[in-house]
């Protein structure tokens, strides 16, 4: 799934400067706890989280994740946006809950991938 489709499915807004281009997402994981997310083994993944501090970007960076979606209407703090722009990681925000966000993406064809 392309990032512009993720944006549409989640009725999301982009919070960062990195262009969506043709970035292809192969799988997604959702968690507010970053160690749970770090157990997610899929490359080219998407992280959905309610954690709106820079550690969600650090986690994405370590995992080669190109996009972080903040759920439940969370607003990213300035440090998060600055780090995401530096690392060229796309951050989106959606008003949908974690459950609904994951459900909408799954229904649209994005799988959960493997746990390493």
């Amino acid at each position, binding site marked *: 799934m392309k990032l512009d489709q993720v944006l549409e499915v989640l009725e999301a807004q982009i919070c960062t400067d990195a262009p969506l281009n043709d970035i292809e997402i192969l799988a997604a994981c959702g968690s507010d706890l970053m*160690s749970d997310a770090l157990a997610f083994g899929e490359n080219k993944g998407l992280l959905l989280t309610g954690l709106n501090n820079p*550690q969600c970007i650090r986690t994405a*960076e370590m995992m080669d994740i190109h996009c972080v979606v903040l759920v439940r209407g969370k607003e990213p703090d300035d440090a998060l946006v600055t780090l995401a722009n530096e690392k060229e990681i796309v951050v989106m925000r959606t008003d949908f809950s974690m459950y609904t966000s994951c459900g909408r993406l799954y229904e649209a064809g994005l799988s959960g991938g493997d746990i390493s």
Partner: protein
Amino acid sequence: MSQVLTQKYVVGADDFAAAGAASAAVKKTLKQLNFPVDFIRRASIAMYEGEINMVIHGGGGVASVEIYEDCVKIILTDKGPGIPDIEQAMQEGYSTATDSIRELGFGAGMGLPNIKKQSDDFEITSEVDKGTTLIITINSNS
């Protein structure tokens, strides 16, 4: 196994804003040295988990990273409170993290098991009131 380079980082106590900076720097170096993508991701995740532990549990410490042609050895040493029962600490879901740490996104009790999972060799030694040392080895051809 000839050594390519060694890096050393001081990890600050409770410096949550900077947590992960050392791991990010090591990841950048491994990329510049053209190691395989999967190897870099495993090394980055293992070191990041360890670095976070040093910040939130270990009172900070030192990360020494030895990069060889075919592997990386990450040595994380803190002078924190130590771990009384390592076997228990290695169980998935076991955590002594406080609610305030969980609010920051950590404390799932997955850190040490994740590190072991990403490693080809993992050693942990700890002494109560003296500190903890992790030695993480990841091979590029595994």
